[in-house]
């Protein structure tokens, strides 16, 4: 069985057409793409907004849908519309219906899988004594943290996707899903061992990132047998090499040997990689262990406040040397009117040219001849965020330094203006929830679309 993976994040930047068409010409058995990530920050989930333009999402869905229907093979999209909320599933389903009508496609079955979880449902489970364990060093989920959460999604494993395919789905639009599971599902349903199926998913999830040289949004094809996965780059200038495929196992994960999915763990410790032709690498030696208890990952985001941003520059070398005192002055002036930062407001000074990118992790102590100061204020009400940001920025201009020569203003304002950013959110939930039944939190609907 072969699966075509055209993009690591559908809609984030449009799919490149050339390598996609070359992949389709190979006649894959499914066309599968992930469309979401928690990399984009907590705001899209918390506010339930896409972070990609619908134009690009439609572009990618159209390419995949037309090719999959022409080949008569399943199309699967996971984590619809960036965060995989119910809104995202509905939005993509509506795009699919519209495309089917516009292109006069013959009838096909569309399955939608919803995996958003209500806060009340999670609270109920907590009250019944369910332990919702924190990931990556987090404490177990507590009621107060849940209360700060605006929206949650459960990251589905293969089971709902297999179920949808069993019901005859030609096109599956799924809510938040584990990236590797959307690829593993058709392989598992076709009877391939879990280890090979999950490895197939692992290697395909980011499309051309598993190939070299570095290119995004190019297609790759993975082929699974009972004990091996081969992966081939479709772009004529890209190759899947032992090094590129092995390094991809490390990408975006703390440990290159293990991939945790709902229900188990893929063990890549004993993987063997071999180059079978110039653009293809074969991998063997993976194993899969099922967990004793089926657990599903929960992601949740909560709003912190409205966000205001302003930008100032500093060129005076004496002021730059004393930038901490300047920021201290501005913070103090805000503090006089608003008290200490905390629940009422948060105030950040990003000092580009010193440590704006790395903050306290920055080991380099030299500072440039000019500094860019980005002032970020967050408060529950926009009006408050705006004036706190203005106060914290204008006081860079009025900072009092004992030996300053430039007594007409200690900062350059690119404009005396406060910009409104999207509200600030926080990842409040990064936890795992035990389930009795892998399907219990999701809803699967099917409908016939077209003609």
């Amino acid at each position, binding site marked *: 069985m072969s699966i075509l993976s055209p993009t690591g994040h559908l809609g984030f930047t449009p799919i490149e057409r050339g390598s996609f068409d070359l992949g389709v010409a190979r006649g894959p058995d499914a066309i599968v793409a992930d469309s979401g990530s928690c990399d984009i920050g907590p705001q899209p989930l918390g506010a339930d907004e896409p972070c990609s333009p619908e134009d690009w999402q439609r572009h990618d869905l159209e390419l995949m849908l037309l090719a999959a229907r022409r080949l008569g093979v399943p199309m699967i999209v996971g984590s619809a519309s960036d965060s995989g909320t119910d809104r995202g599933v509905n939005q993509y389903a509506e795009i699919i219906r519209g495309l089917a009508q516009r292109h006069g496609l013959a009838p096909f079955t569309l399955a939608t899988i919803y995996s958003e979880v209500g806060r009340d449902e999670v609270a109920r489970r907590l009250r019944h004594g369910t332990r919702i364990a924190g990931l990556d060093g987090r404490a177990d989920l507590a009621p107060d943290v849940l209360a700060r959460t605006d929206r949650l999604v459960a990251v589905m494993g293969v089971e709902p996707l297999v179920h949808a395919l069993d019901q005859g789905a030609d096109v599956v639009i799924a809510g938040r899903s584990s990236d590797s599971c959307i690829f593993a599902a058709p392989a598992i349903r076709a009877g391939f061992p879990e280890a090979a199926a999950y490895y197939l998913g692992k290697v395909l999830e980011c499309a051309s990132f598993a190939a070299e040289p570095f290119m995004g949004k190019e297609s790759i094809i993975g082929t699974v047998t009972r004990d091996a996965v081969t992966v081939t780059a479709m772009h004529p200038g890209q190759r899947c090499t032992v090094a590129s495929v092995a390094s991809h196992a490390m990408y975006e994960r703390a440990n*290159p040997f293990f991939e945790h999915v709902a229900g188990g763990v893929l063990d890549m410790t004993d993987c063997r990689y071999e180059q079978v032709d110039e653009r293809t690498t074969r991998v063997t030696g993976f194993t899969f262990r099922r967990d004793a208890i089926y657990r599903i990952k929960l992601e949740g985001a909560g709003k912190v406040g409205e966000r205001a941003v302003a930008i100032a520059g500093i060129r005076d070398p004496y002021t730059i040397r004393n930038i901490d005192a300047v920021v201290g002055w501005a913070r103090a002036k805000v503090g006089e009117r608003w008290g200490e930062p905390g629940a009422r407001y948060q105030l950040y000074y990003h000092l580009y040219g010193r440590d704006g990118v790395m903050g306290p992790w920055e080991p380099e102590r030299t500072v440039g001849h000019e500094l860019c100061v980005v002032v970020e204020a967050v408060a529950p009400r926009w009006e408050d965020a705006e004036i706190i940001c203005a106060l914290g920025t204008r006081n860079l201009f009025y900072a009092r330094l004992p030996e300053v020569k430039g007594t007409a203003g200690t900062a350059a304002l690119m404009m005396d203006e406060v910009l409104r950013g999207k509200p600030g*959110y926080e990842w409040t939930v990064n936890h795992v929830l035990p389930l009795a039944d892998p399907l219990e939190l999701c809803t699967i609907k099917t409908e016939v679309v077209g003609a």
Partner: protein
Amino acid sequence: MRTKRLVELAKTIRSKNAGVDQITFDVIFGDRESYELVKRSGALTADVVSQLYAIPRERITAFVEYDPAPAIKFTIRRDRPSGSPGERDVFGAQQYAPLFDLLVPLDA
């Protein structure tokens, strides 16, 4: 003592989110000799990372020598989840630069 900077020995040096609470760093080598040399030299260890980034040792949640790539990989727990107010690097993609200048003794 003859030395080379890590950036001269590695093919790829990168950082990226590993989930919302961690940033993971990959130092990938184009040849096994450079990889073995850096491993042997002790120029890149969890203690070195802890000092370079001025973080307590326990914030480094993984440090792995990964032969198949070959690569050295480590992971740091963030101060707060990615994308929170005050964020400096939502994707964690620009945290690797200080590794370039680590000096690797060639005669180790």
